[in-house]
């Protein structure tokens, strides 16, 4: 009975091996192990690159959110991310977090932190919140504040990091990288080191959830992207990250590129369920259906039916093994079974091996599909190619 398995790293984070095993089992049984729940899209910052429409209201009330948490727990969700918008704008944030912890969720918060007081930090620590992610856009306060359009926000976010860290919470500094933002990754890494927190850079700026393309224009250009990936502050192991792709084997072709819809999902403040926050396909509304009914509904089943070998173009791409393909980006660019220009560009920047859409097509040239808003279900059949209209090869020749 004592065959407990424990894993840890020096940084206190679970090693991937057991997490991978658990994730694989969740996928095999279609258990939504992780859920990202936005509690509101309202925000007290006005970040230039944001993908949300802050004017959308009609947020679920406290009872509705608790009902969703009950359903997620019953469905097997363990890893819960509460995000927004700005979660601290919810007057019931502590009630929600306490309820989530009473259901034994592993709770991670995403916040800008500028409203987190000493007492708030105490309460989150007492409740057993494990991790808080806070976005920082530059090591220079004036640049960060210009992006958030809130004077003093850099100082307040940094103070929140210190407060939370001092209570023993794991804090992760998230750095979206885009034009006009972070350009000195080493300085940001040094700042994270000084604060004693982890740092994660991400150079993919997505379209707005309503299909608007404005944020995409903020993506860094090809040369900057290459410098980004080659920067040791960003990429710990250049040898691994920039290795040339290897021919995909059967396991990869029978796999899929992302757990969205397989073992994880996203829920909007209005109760719409989607595969991921960057995969804005409304699969159903929790105001009209149960979570499990939506999770087992046709849109999710069809997403779970897509394997790498089924992908248009990508299935025969020589970079398949190196690419971190995002089906949500592909969806927003027009075809969830197709490639995404942003991923093609990222992969090319790392491997220098030409990809289907890059360098042949410039970033932002693809037409973007305007996804549905609350209650506007997009029939999946309308988004997928007809059965006989696929360009993939049934038996790849590698």
């Amino acid at each position: 009975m004592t065959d407990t398995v424990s894993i840890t790293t020096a940084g206190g984070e679970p090693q991937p091996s057991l997490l991978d095993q658990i994730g694989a089992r969740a996928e095999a049984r279609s258990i939504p192990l992780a859920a990202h729940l936005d509690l509101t899209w309202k925000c007290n910052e006005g970040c230039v690159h944001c993908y949300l429409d802050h004017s959308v209201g009609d947020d679920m009330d406290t009872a509705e959110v608790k009902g969703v948490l009950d359903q997620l727990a019953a469905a097997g969700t363990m890893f819960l991310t509460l995000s927004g918008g700005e979660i601290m704008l919810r007057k019931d944030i502590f009630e929600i977090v306490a309820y989530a912890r009473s259901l034994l969720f592993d709770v991670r918060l995403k916040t800008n932190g500028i409203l987190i007081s000493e007492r708030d930090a105490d309460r989150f620590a007492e409740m057993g919140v494990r991790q808080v992610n806070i976005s920082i856009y530059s090591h220079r306060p004036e640049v960060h504040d210009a992006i958030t359009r809130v004077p003093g926000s850099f100082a307040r976010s940094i103070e929140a990091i210190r407060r939370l860290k001092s209570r023993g919470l794991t804090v992760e500094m998230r750095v979206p990288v885009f034009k006009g933002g972070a350009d000195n990754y080493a300085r940001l890494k040094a700042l994270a080191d000084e604060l004693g927190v982890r740092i994660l850079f991400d150079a993919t700026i997505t379209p707005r959830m309503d299909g608007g393309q404005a944020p995409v224009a903020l993506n860094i250009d090809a040369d900057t992207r290459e410098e980004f990936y080659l920067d040791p502050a960003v990429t710990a192991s250049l040898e691994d990250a920039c290795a040339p792709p290897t021919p995909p084997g059967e396991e990869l072709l029978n796999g899929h590129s992302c757990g969205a819809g397989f073992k994880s999902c996203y829920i909007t403040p209005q109760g719409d369920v989607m595969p991921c926050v960057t995969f804005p396909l409304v699969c159903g509304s929790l105001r009209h259906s149960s979570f499990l009914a939506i999770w087992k509904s046709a849109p999710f089943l069809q997403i779970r039916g897509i394997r790498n070998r089924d992908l248009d173009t990508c299935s025969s791409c020589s970079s398949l093994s190196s690419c971190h393909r995002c089906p949500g980006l592909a969806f927003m660019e027009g075809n969830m079974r197709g490639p995404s220009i942003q991923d093609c560009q990222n992969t090319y920047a790392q491997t220098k091996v030409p990809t289907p859409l890059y360098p042949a097509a410039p970033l932002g040239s693809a037409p973007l599909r305007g996804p549905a808003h609350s209650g506007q279900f997009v029939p999946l059949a309308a988004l997928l190619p007809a059965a006989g209209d696929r360009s993939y090869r049934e038996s790849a020749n590698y």
Partner: protein
Amino acid sequence: MSVYVARSREIAARSLDGEMIVMSMRDSRLFTLNEVATEIWLAADGHTPLSRIVEDKVCAKFETEPEAAYADAENLCRGLAEHGIMVISDQPIESAR
């Protein structure tokens, strides 16, 4: 002397296909408990003596010698307590209620 055990409040946990997954909030360590360990962990309410838990949840369901089962169970609980996912005491644990 009776031994009382309680699930720590500083954990996240979920049953995954019959196997209990437990994460310590203290250090993010992740554990999986087998079927017998899960029975004990679920019954660890802070006021039921471990001996009673072993009797009701282990010996009644699994073919095992009571003394060996109790020794194993106590070792398990002490190990989990070291990792902060269980509390163990010679008194009922009121905070677990």
